[in-house]
C-alpha cells in the first residue's frame, strides 16, 4: 500500500489510512486554532468518505482551542472562503483533496480574509504544529458548533451581482462535475436562475469517482468533449472535486488546453479595467502577455505555487489587479476578493461569449497559436545546482530569470526548468509561438536526464 503524507506550507495532505491519520488531523487543526485570532471558524468538506472522519477531528480541535465552528457540510472551497468573508470569521478549513484521487484527503487553511495563508502565516502555523504547544481551553472556554444553511444561496447572490446570469440563459452548457461539489452549486443555479446546464457525473460520491478529478485537456476529452456536438451545446466545463478549478471544451467538441483559461479570463476582464495587472507564474503561457497587451494590461510573473501568488497579491492594491491565476485552470478575480473559483471562471467565459456575441471556438481562433510542451523527471537534489548553471551558460543569450529555478526567454520562445515543491521531480516547460519547440524541449530533457 502506498504511504503518503505531506506536511508543508500549503497544509496537510495524504492518503487516508496509510499516511494521513486522525492524530495528524487533530494536531494540525489544533495548531490552526491556536494560530488564529479569536472568533468563529468556517469549515466544509468535499464528498470523500474519509471527509467525515476528518471533519469530526477538525471540529473537536477547533472547539477545544476556543473557536465556535460553522459547519457548511459538503460544499465547494470557494463557498467556504466566501462565507469566511461574509461572517467576518477568524478563518476557515476546507477538507478535501481537490484534484487528487479519492483515497487522498487534505486540509486547506484560510485566513480571516478568506484567502490562503501567506508564506509567513503558513510558516507560523507549521511552527505551532511542530512544537505541539496548543492553546487547549478550560471547559468554560470551549467553542460551540453551529450550521449555516444559507451559505450557498448568499454566495450565489454575490455571483449574480458580478455576472448577469439572466443573460446567460440562452447558452446550452454541459458540465462534468466528477461527482464533486460543483453539482450542488450548479443544481441550485439551475433552480434559481434557470440556466441551461446539462450535468454529467453529478452524483455526489465518496469512494468511486467517475474518473480521475484532474483538471486538464486530457480529462476533458474523456467524457465531456465527445458530448458537446451531439447535444448541440455551446461549451463544456469540467470541475475538480472542490470546484476551485475549471477546464473547458469548445462548441466544436475540442478540449481546450488548460493554459488558455487564464488568457480567456484576462480577455474578458481587462477591457473592463484597462491598464491593470495580470498576475501569474513563470510557467504560464506567453499568450497571456499578448492578450494583456491588446487591452493595455501588464503581466507580472512570480514563482510557481499558491504561496508565491498569495504573497504577490498582497503587494498590490486590489484596484491594480485585473485577474490572477495559473496555467492549471485556477483563476482569481478581484470581484471575488481573490479566491480560486472554478464556477466564477466558468461564468466569466460564458459572459465573454455573450459580450462578444461569438462562439467559444471563434474567440479562441482570434488567439495566435502557442505550443507548450511539459515534462518531468525524477530529481537528485545534489545535481540540481550544476544542472542550472550549465543551462544558464548554454542559453545565456536569452532573458534570464532565476526567481524559481531557471526561466530563459526569447522573443517567441521560452523555457522554465524548476524543482517541484510537492513532489521529488524536476519540471521542464517549454513554449514557442507557432509550432511546438520539439528540439529545444528534447535537448533540455536530455540535459536534465544526464544530470540526474
Amino acid at each position: 500500500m502506498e504511504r503518503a503524507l505531506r506536511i508543508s506550507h500549503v497544509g496537510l495532505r495524504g492518503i487516508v489510512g496509510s499516511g494521513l491519520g486522525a492524530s495528524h488531523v487533530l494536531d494540525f487543526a489544533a495548531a490552526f486554532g491556536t494560530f488564529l485570532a479569536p472568533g468563529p471558524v468556517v469549515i466544509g468538506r468535499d464528498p470523500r468518505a474519509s471527509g467525515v472522519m476528518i471533519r469530526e477531528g477538525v471540529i473537536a480541535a477547533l472547539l477545544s482551542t476556543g473557536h465556535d465552528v460553522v459547519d457548511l457540510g459538503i460544499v465547494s472551497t470557494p463557498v467556504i472562503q466566501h462565507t469566511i468573508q461574509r461572517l467576518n470569521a477568524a478563518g476557515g478549513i476546507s477538507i478535501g483533496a481537490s484534484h487528487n484521487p479519492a483515497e487522498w484527503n487534505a486540509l486547506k487553511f484560510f485566513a480571516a480574509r478568506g484567502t490562503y495563508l501567506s508564506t509567513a502565516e503558513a510558516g507560523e502555523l507549521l511552527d505551532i504544529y511542530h512544537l505541539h504547544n496548543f492553546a487547549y481551553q478550560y471547559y468554560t472556554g470551549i467553542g460551540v458548533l453551529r450550521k449555516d444553511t444559507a451559505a450557498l444561496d448568499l454566495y450565489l447572490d454575490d455571483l449574480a451581482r458580478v455576472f448577469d446570469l439572466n443573460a446567460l440563459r440562452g447558452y446550452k452548457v454541459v458540465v462534468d462535475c466528477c461527482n464533486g461539489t460543483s453539482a450542488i452549486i450548479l443544481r441550485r443555479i439551475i433552480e434559481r436562475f434557470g440556466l441551461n446546464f446539462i450535468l454529467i457525473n453529478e452524483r455526489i460520491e465518496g469512494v468511486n469517482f467517475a474518473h480521475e478529478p484532474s483538471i486538464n485537456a486530457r480529462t476533458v476529452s474523456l467524457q465531456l468533449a465527445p458530448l458537446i456536438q451531439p447535444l448541440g451545446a455551446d461549451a463544456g466545463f469540467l470541475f475538480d472535486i472542490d470546484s476551485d478549478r475549471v477546464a473547458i471544451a469548445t462548441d466544436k467538441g475540442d478540449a481546450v488546453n488548460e493554459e488558455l483559461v487564464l488568457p480567456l479570463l484576462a480577455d474578458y476582464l481587462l477591457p473592463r479595467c484597462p491598464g491593470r495587472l495580470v498576475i501569474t507564474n513563470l510557467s504560464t503561457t506567453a499568450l497571456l502577455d499578448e492578450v494583456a497587451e491588446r487591452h493595455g494590461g501588464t503581466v507580472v510573473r512570480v514563482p510557481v505555487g499558491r504561496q508565491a501568488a498569495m504573497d504577490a497579491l498582497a503587494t498590490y492594491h486590489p484596484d491594480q489587479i485585473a485577474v490572477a491565476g495559473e496555467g492549471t485552470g485556477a483563476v482569481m478575480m478581484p470581484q471575488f476578493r481573490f479566491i480560486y473559483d472554478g464556477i466564477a471562471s466558468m461564468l466569466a467565459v460564458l459572459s465573454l461569449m455573450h459580450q462578444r456575441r461569438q462562439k467559444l471556438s471563434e474567440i479562441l481562433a482570434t488567439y495566435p497559436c502557442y505550443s507548450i510542451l511539459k515534462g518531468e523527471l525524477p530529481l537528485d537534489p545534489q545535481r540540481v545546482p550544476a544542472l542550472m548553471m550549465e543551462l544558464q551558460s548554454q542559453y545565456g543569450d536569452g532573458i534570464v530569470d532565476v526567481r524559481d529555478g531557471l526561466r530563459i526567454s526569447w522573443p517567441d520562445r521560452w523555457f522554465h526548468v524548476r524543482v517541484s515543491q510537492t513532489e521529488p521531480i524536476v519540471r521542464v516547460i517549454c513554449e514557442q509561438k507557432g509550432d511546438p519547440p520539439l528540439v529545444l524541449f528534447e535537448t533540455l530533457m536530455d540535459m536534465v536526464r544526464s544530470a540526474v
Partner: protein
Amino acid sequence: MREHRLKVGVSGIRGVVGEFLTPALACSYAQAFGTFVGPGKVVLGRDTRSSGEMLQHAVACGLLATGCDVVYVGIQPTPTIQVYVNATRARGGISITASHNPSEYNALKLFNHAGLFFNHYERRELLDLFYESEFRTATNDRIGRVAYDPDTPPRMHLDRVVRHVDVGRVRAHKFKVALDGVNGAGSELSVHFLRDVLGCRLEAISVDPTQPFPREAEPRPDTLGDLQELVRRTGADIGFGQDPDGDRLAIVDENGVVLDNDDVLALVVDAVLTSMPGDVAVNLTTSSVIDDIALAHGRRVYRTPVGEANVVEMMQAVKAVIGGEGSNGGIIFPSVQYCRDSYTGMGFVLDLMERTGLTLSQLAARMPAYSRRSGKFAFEHGRLGTLMRQLEVTFPEGQCDRRDGLKILLEDAWVHMRASNTEPILRYAVEAKSPDRAAELEGKVRALIAG
C-alpha cells in the same frame, strides 16, 4: 507539587478538560476502542457538560478512523445509552461523561456489545492497545458512516423500566414528586418519565440541559439543599436527585430529609427479593444492612471491589437478581440492564410506596439501623502501604479483606480504606451499629491519616 488531574487506567480515561484531557487523547483512546471492538456500529452519547460536544467529535474521529460506524444519540443518560447498545446489538458504546465529578472534568465510559461496562479482561486489552498505539486504520473505501438516532434510546430504556413497575396503579396514585435534574443528561427524560409516564404531579428544578450544573454534581445530603427545600415547600411525597449522567440517584423523604444511599438500595433490594428469587451483589463499601435484608429472604450477598464494572461482573457470575453500590447511589437491576440506573430506582421506589401505602420515612424506618461515616483525603504517593499496615495493626482483632484496599471486619462494625479508581485520592468508610462506635472508629482512622 503540581496537581496532575488526569487518570488513564483500567476504568477508562478521565481528567480536567484542556490541560489534561485533550481532544487528541480522547481520539487516541477511541482509536484503541475501535481497534478492539472491530468494524461495526458504535453508539456515542454524552452528558450536558460544555466539553461534551468537543469530545464527542474527537471520539467520533477516532472511531471512524478505525473503520467503525458512529451512531450519535446526543445527550442521553448513561443507562439509556447502555440499554440502546444492548438492544441494537451494536459493537459497543461510549458515554462521554465524568458522572458525578465537577464540571471541569470529563471522561469516557466504555461499553461492550451487550451495553456492559468493560470487564477487567476487556479493560486490560484496551489499555494495552492504547499504550501500543498500533491502531487499525481504514482507507477511504472502508471509512465508516455517521448516523443520528436521538429518539429511540429513551423509548427503549423506559419500555424496559415500566415492565417492572405497576404503571396503572402508580399513575392512579398521582404522587407529588420533586426532582432535581442537576441540568444533566436526564433532565428532559426524567420530566417525561415522572410526569407523562408515571402520572406524577411534578415539581422540577434544574432540568435545563443547556445550563451549567447549579450545584455540585454528586447528589449527596450536603449538595441537595434546593431539592430538600422544594420538597418541604411543595409538600411533595418524595424528591429525586440525579447526577449529570443519570446513573446515580439520591432520594429525599416527605420531611425533606436526604435518605442514606445505602438505605435506598436496601429498600430496593428488599422489594426485588420479595418478588424474585435470586442473590445479591454489592461492593465492599456498601452497608451491612444489605446482608441483614438478604438474610431475612434467605439469600446470599456477594461483595466486590468498588466500581460498577466489578459489581456487574459478579452479578453475572452468580446470576444475582439485584445489586448495586449503596455507597454512591447506584441500583443495578439486570432485568432492565446491567448498569446503575436512576430510572429503575425511581420507578421501584414509587411502586413500593404505592404497594405498601407507607411514606418514605416509614419505609426507611423499617430498615435495620446502622451508623456510617466516610471521608476522603489527598493521595500521597508511597504512603498507602504504610497506612494500610498501620490500619491492620490498629485493629488486630479484625478480619482482613484485601480485594480493594483494605476492609477490616470487626465483630460489630467494619472499616474500609481504598484508593479511588477515578481520582488521585484515598477514601475511607466506617460502619457500626451505634453512632458512638462509628465516631470512635472514624476517629482512629483519621488519627492514622493525620500521622
